[in-house]
């Protein structure tokens, strides 16, 4: 048994077989075999090793001919490892003595070597670990062949373990089969965390290196309350967690009872609870959790994993799917493409199968970004900036949003607006698209409400000017915090700077709310901050009356709202605004929230 500590990002407990993700995306199908199968498993091993060695020999010759012997040598080393008697002996021992299935035995042995290499002082040969993984994959490919299980059609529930998950990887996962995530990298607001929240499954990130400790099929526990990953738990631990899992579920079902009750303070002030969604199929769970509408519909998934830009019909189909679930009267705020470096560029290794990922995605490709990666992507060509440089792409999405607006309470929202001029450009293009549709006789809502995200400090500072030109604001706290504190939320070494409770952030929010109030504008808060019960009183007290959160977070936020009064919240917000550090603010808010709802953080 081994226990790893990371950052808890989505609550819950999951126990099950590990699926270790790598760029090849296959998993070990079974761990154990009956004794009658031992000999045939050993035969399969020899065959696979032989095939794999033949492949590396062929590679060696090809590479030598092309680049010279010093480059071919790397494959010569691979061949040597594959034909190393020690390797086949160790794997056979596991098959014979432990009754391991051959694929599982291969994985365990290779990872044992990788682990040993990694632990050598000075990390002298740590890079060679990649060679071992390469060899492992080659053997497994030969063993499993076409029987490789794809992630999109897993046959049994798994716990996904990875170094990090890219959006295209998570998009291809079948949420019915994935019971938890645990990743080596990432911080509290990483994409993995967001997706885990959306899928409502336990998740732990920032665990540091553990991939070499686990083989696919090992039993692991993800403790999303305490941020733990337990590899190969002993019987006692496992039993304890079975118990925790059961009691968490009953706690969840208690929260579910709030579903039909309004989000209303004790003194009768209503707060609109909206849901954040990414995939159309999330709108149903969103309603189930008691959302009154969709406050943030992220549309990036439409662009991910495609060979070409999505068509107008593809956009429309997705939007109508959401509208059909939400009904004609619930608001659905569609955010235009908000892709940037962090969410878009897949890792260099590409992704096999699934038609997902690959080595670059069309919108970036078409503006030439793929060719020259930006040195500072977070301050680069992302989001609405990218759209303004690629009007065909932008207009296609606008047309679809406008067409959808004929069927429900659709609203459009522009992300990452940093100047007034950008907003005006967006609105101008929208007006053009409306004209086109009118000429073509296509129905749309001419009064389509236009909003802007406030997620760049410049937009928060100029909120008053922006307020004159839109009908709503939505504060995107994740980016606002990151840009205000200049701290990458995914960088573990600086992620402590990233705090929603930072006094600078509170001042910006206050400023936006005041500007909006002056112009009689609705302000929504989306982003992780709105889904954290710690900040609910503060946001209420600052004057926020609309919150958009990941669906699974709705009941907990509603419970806080129903336990407090506006007067209490205003007092708490005023006091929080007087405090000097994020830590003081967070401690104070924790105390205040506990006072009204003692069990809130359990």
């Amino acid at each position: 048994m081994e226990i790893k500590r990371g950052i808890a990002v989505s609550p819950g407990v999951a126990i099950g077989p590990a699926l270790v993700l790598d760029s090849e995306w296959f998993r070990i199908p079974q761990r154990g075999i009956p004794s009658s199968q031992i000999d045939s498993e050993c035969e399969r091993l020899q065959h696979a090793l032989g095939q794999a060695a033949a492949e590396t020999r062929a590679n060696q010759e090809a590479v030598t001919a092309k680049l010279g012997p010093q480059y071919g040598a790397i494959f010569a080393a691979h061949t040597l490892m594959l034909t190393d008697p020690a390797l086949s002996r160790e794997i056979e021992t596991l098959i014979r003595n432990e009754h391991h299935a051959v694929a599982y035995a291969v994985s365990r042995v290779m990872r044992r070597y990788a682990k040993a290499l990694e632990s050598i002082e000075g990390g002298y040969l740590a890079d060679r670990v990649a060679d071992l993984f390469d060899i492992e994959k080659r053997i497994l490919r030969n063993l499993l062949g076409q029987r490789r299980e794809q992630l999109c059609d897993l046959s049994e529930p798994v716990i996904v373990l990875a170094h990090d998950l890219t959006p295209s990887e998570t998009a291809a996962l079948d949420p019915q089969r994935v019971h938890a995530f645990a990743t080596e990298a990432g911080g509290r607001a990483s994409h993995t965390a967001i997706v885990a929240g959306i899928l409502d499954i336990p998740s732990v990130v920032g665990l540091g290196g553990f991939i070499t400790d686990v083989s696919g099929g090992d039993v692991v526990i993800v403790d999303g309350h305490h941020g733990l990953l337990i590899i190969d738990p002993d019987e006692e631990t496992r039993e304890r967690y079975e118990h925790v899992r059961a009691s968490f579920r009953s706690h969840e079902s208690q929260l579910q009872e709030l579903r039909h009750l309004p989000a209303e303070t004790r003194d009768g002030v209503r707060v609109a609870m909206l849901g954040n969604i990414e995939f159309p199929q999330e709108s149903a769970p969103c309603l189930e959790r008691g959302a009154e509408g969709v406050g943030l519909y992220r549309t990036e998934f439409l662009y991910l994993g495609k060979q070409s830009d999505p068509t107008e019909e593809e956009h429309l189909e997705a939007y109508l799917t959401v509208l059909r679930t939400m009904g004609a009267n619930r608001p659905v705020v569609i955010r235009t493409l908000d892709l940037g470096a962090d969410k878009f560029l897949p890792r260099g290794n590409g992704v096999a199968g699934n038609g997902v990922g690959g080595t670059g995605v069309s919108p970036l490709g078409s503006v030439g970004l793929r060719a020259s990666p930006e040195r500072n992507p977070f301050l680069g060509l992302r989001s609405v900036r990218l759209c303004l440089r690629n009007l065909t792409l932008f207009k296609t999405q606008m047309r679809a949003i406008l067409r959808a607006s004929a069927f429900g309470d659709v609203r459009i929202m522009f992300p990452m607006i940093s100047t007034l001029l950008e907003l005006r450009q967006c609105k101008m293009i929208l007006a053009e698209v409306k004209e086109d549709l009118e000429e073509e006789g296509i129905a749309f809502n001419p009064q389509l409400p236009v909003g802007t995200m406030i997620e760049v400090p410049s937009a928060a500072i100029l909120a008053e000017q922006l307020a004159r030109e839109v009908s709503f604001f939505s504060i995107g706290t994740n980016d606002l915090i990151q840009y205000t504190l200049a701290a990458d939320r995914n960088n573990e070494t600086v992620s402590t700077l990233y705090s929603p409770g930072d006094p600078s952030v509170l001042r910006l929010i206050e400023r936006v709310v005041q500007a909006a109030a002056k112009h009689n504008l609705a302000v929504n808060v989306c982003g992780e901050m709105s889904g954290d019960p710690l900040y609910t009183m503060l946001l209420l007290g600052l004057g926020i009356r609309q919150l958009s959160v990941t669906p699974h977070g709705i009941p907990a936020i509603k419970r806080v709202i129903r336990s407090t009064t506006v007067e209490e919240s205003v007092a708490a917000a005023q006091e929080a605004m007087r405090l000097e550090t994020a830590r003081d603010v967070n401690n104070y808010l924790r105390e205040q929230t506990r006072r009204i709802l003692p069990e809130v953080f359990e």
Partner: protein
Amino acid sequence: MNGESLIQKVVITNPQGFHMRPMAAFAQLAARFDSSVKVSREGQSVNGKSILDLMLLAAAQGTELTLEVAGPDAPSALDALVKLLKSPAEEESSDPSI
């Protein structure tokens, strides 16, 4: 195992240490002899014919390794292996990862 058992210490001179390529060459060469080949460093001892084992001995420049060869062709094996370890970084590669 009949024949002699010979022991010799060798200091790694390759600036990149006893790394992948020399290890591969070493394991390949060692496998050609009938004698057993053990390589040890600071009490840790591995099979010199197994590249996977050798990798665990990763040794930087200046490290002292001990070779122990036992078997019928021990003298020629030891001679060849020591020569290999002492040979200057062959075809000096600019890419240390290879």
